């Protein structure tokens, strides 16, 4: 006789004794092979054990689909133990997309009508978990029957099964409405709870059904009164509150029924006031009920006195020591910040304090709420707090915080200069976050020296600064500022800043590229220092960096030959450097022998290529590159090589 324990301990012990992942895989493969063999045999009394073993294996993440048919067979078995495991297996291994799931429809149908309530229960549970639309249509009448004529145990399960059916096949909601209505007169709390869940589902799906169920508000109020005001009931008591789960569920239904409806809201007003004042808030369960009451009051058309009471309760929650309570208080405040903005503003101080909380979840809620509370009157103080938050906030919130700050700054900035300074501050704080750059680029000019001296190592920032100087140089130089201390930027200042970037050994080649292009752009925006620009540009005509050199050469050409076109190229709408040709798609180094022949360098990497010059005095280097759009080839001599044996070409 096989052992009574369902999951053979032997297999589990074997799996657990494996020292490594590899060993575990080996054990499991062996066990699965044995299980497969067992499945192929005829009924051998130990079938449920094998399937149970398989489900354990499945939980660990190993494939178990070969057990699907075994589930189907087990479900059809007359033995309860086998049905039980079979249904469990079906819920874990089958889904409605598989053909095997259709095969169990008939078993479920039969089991729904079984004389044993536990067998019925298995069928109901499985149908509620994985019933497909067809199965639901097929079996809906059966469920309706069970909703009306069975014991409490089955009724409550049938109610939730009906919810699943309605989710899958919306039209069937009509079928269950009458039965749901009559379930409200049941005494059993489990059934009541199921009924309320079902009614919520029906009302949310169909506005007409919602209308009809509004008539049940008095009944619901009665039930609630019974729960709240009745004496101690040991059966349902949880920390002094009678069935808090049911109370919460009924409150939610009342919320749905009272929304946008004066009559229904009036009918529940007194009850809500009673619950709000009588519920003990020293325990979690009490708070769950209070919280639900508050949400309901704020969502329906309640009296103003009641609304004030509700918001005050939330305010109390905000000061609660329990972080959970603070968290949900903020969640609720978030829901009403649109409609009861002033009431929520009163708690702004506490909310802003929560930005400094240790807990990342609380921080997240506080951030959302703070951003929603920013207004023209509190922008300066709020922004201080938000920027402080940004400097120490967890990385997963950074992008959201930055974009929220940008939006707030844009909407409520008291002045241009403040706006720009704020954005600068944000950029400096999140200088590694590429996502925030485009936001800043859409705003106009800013103080170049602050950026270029502030953090020379933050390449993307410096690039942005250079681009802005180039692009909006004329605005910058005009000095349009309505600030307390206007900063006058001269052409020399701007060029100084750019030259610093060009010469700084900390600037990357890309940054130098930006700076050079910006310098070039300025040539069209300034009047006095064009010669200075020309000299800067020509210096870089023989720069070691290939990209920079090429650009400089082309700019020089613009000056010399195409001066008249310089101005035409000034108007740029594209955020990238328009005057320069697009960066080359690929560069190929060649070794040029004295004979004139050239040999391509080795290496397929686009960025780095290597060539070994055994005799650098006799052999030169050239490079070719292609542009994305034109596909032209420029053969340029590459000068000023360090006298070493290798040369790396960096794009």
């Amino acid at each position: 006789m096989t052992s009574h324990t369902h999951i053979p301990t032997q297999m589990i012990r074997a799996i657990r004794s494996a020292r490594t992942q590899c060993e575990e895989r080996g054990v499991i493969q062996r066990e699965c092979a044995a299980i497969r063999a067992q499945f192929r045999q005829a009924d051998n009394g130990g079938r449920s054990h094998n399937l149970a073993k398989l489900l354990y294996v499945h939980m660990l993440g190993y494939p178990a689909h070969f057990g699907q048919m075994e589930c189907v067979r087990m479900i059809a078995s007359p033995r309860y133990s086998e049905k039980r495991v079979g249904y469990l297996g079906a819920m874990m291994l089958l889904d409605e997309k598989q053909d095997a799931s259709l095969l169990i429809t008939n078993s479920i149908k039969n089991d729904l009508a079984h004389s044993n309530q536990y067998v019925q229960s298995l069928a109901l549970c499985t149908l509620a978990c994985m019933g497909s639309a067809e199965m639901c249509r097929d079996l809906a009448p059966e469920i309706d029957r069970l909703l009306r004529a069975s014991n409490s145990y089955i009724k409550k399960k049938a109610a939730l099964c009906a919810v699943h059916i309605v989710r899958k096949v919306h039209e069937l909601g009509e079928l269950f409405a009458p039965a749901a209505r009559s379930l409200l007169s049941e005494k059993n709390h489990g059934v009541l709870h199921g009924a309320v869940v079902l009614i919520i589902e029906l009302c949310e799906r169909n506005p007409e059904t919602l209308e009809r169920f509004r008539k049940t508000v008095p009944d619901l109020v009665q039930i609630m009164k019974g729960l709240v005001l009745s004496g101690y009931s040991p059966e349902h008591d949880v920390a002094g509150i009678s069935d808090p789960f049911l109370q919460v569920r009924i409150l939610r239904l009342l919320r749905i029924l009272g929304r946008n409806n004066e009559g229904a809201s009036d009918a529940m007003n007194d009850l809500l006031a009673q619950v709000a004042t009588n519920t003990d808030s020293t325990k979690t369960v009490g708070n769950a009920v209070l919280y639900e009451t508050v949400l309901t009051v704020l969502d329906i058309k309640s009296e103003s006195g009641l609304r004030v009471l509700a918001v005050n309760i939330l305010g109390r929650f905000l000061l609660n020591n329990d972080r959970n309570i603070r968290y949900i208080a903020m969640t609720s405040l978030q829901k009403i910040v649109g409609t009861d903005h002033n009431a929520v503003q009163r708690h702004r101080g506490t909310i802003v304090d929560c930005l400094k909380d240790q807990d990342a979840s609380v921080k997240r809620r506080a951030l959302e709420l703070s951003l929603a509370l920013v207004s023209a009157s509190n922008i300066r103080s709020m922004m201080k707090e938000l920027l402080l938050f940004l400097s120490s906030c967890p990385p997963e919130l950074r992008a959201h915080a930055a974009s929220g700050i940008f939006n707030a700054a844009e909407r409520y900035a008291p002045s241009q200069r403040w706006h720009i300074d704020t954005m600068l501050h944000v950029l400096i704080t999140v200088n590694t976050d590429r996502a925030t750059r485009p936001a800043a680029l859409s705003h106009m000019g800013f103080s170049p020296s602050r950026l270029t001296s502030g953090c020379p190592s933050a390449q993307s920032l410096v690039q942005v600064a250079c681009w802005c100087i180039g692009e909006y140089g004329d605005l910058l130089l005009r000095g349009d500022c309505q600030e307390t201390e206007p900063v006058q930027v001269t052409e020399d200042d701007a060029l100084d800043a750019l030259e610093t970037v060009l010469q700084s050994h900390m600037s990357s080649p890309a940054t130098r590229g930006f700076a050079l292009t910006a310098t070039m752009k300025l040539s069209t925006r300034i009047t006095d220092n064009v010669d200075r620009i020309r000299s800067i540009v020509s210096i870089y005509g023989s720069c070691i960096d290939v990209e920079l050199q090429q650009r400089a050469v082309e700019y020089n050409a613009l000056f010399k030959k195409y001066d008249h076109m310089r101005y035409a190229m000034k108007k740029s709408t594209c955020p990238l450097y328009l005057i320069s040709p697009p960066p080359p798609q690929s560069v190929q180094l060649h070794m040029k022998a004295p004979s004139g022949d050239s040999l391509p360098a080795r290496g397929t990497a686009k960025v780095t290529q290597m060539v070994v010059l055994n005799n650098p005095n006799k052999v030169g280097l050239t490079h070719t590159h292609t542009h994305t759009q034109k596909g032209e080839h420029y053969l340029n001599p590459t000068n000023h090589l360090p006298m070493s044996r290798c040369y790396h070409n960096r794009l």
Partner: protein
Amino acid sequence: MIKAILIFNNHGKPRLSKFYEHYSEDTEQQIIRETFHLVSKRDENVCNFLEGGMLIGGSDYRLIYRHYATLYFVFCVDSSESELGILDLIQVFVETLDKCFENVCELDLIFHVDKVHNILAEMVMGGMVLETNMNEIITQVDSQNKMEKSEVLTG
């Protein structure tokens, strides 16, 4: 609606995984790993609510969890469930397990996974809360176990 109920230990090994929506096996394992990663980062005295899971996706979903000794109990729920209510439900679940297994420990869950599923099936069905009264749950679970035992004895 409850989308998933997960129990795993301090090292991320799953002890119970119940999904009320269908995912492929790989996705299920990914969800377990990701949830473990999110939950294990948390300190002891922070709140029991987490957002930010990518796979059990959407801003409407939260992870509500409780940490008991070596085990994490995690419920992934949407906004139709009361957060505090679910927190209480986890408590009821653990207390029920405690009564059914007599001072439950991790080993009990390991060697009797199907029993844990049966208990859970009396509390949550199709992603919805079914029964929250501990005594009621235990009564039903006991009756069913008796039925199974009597079947085995009669051969």
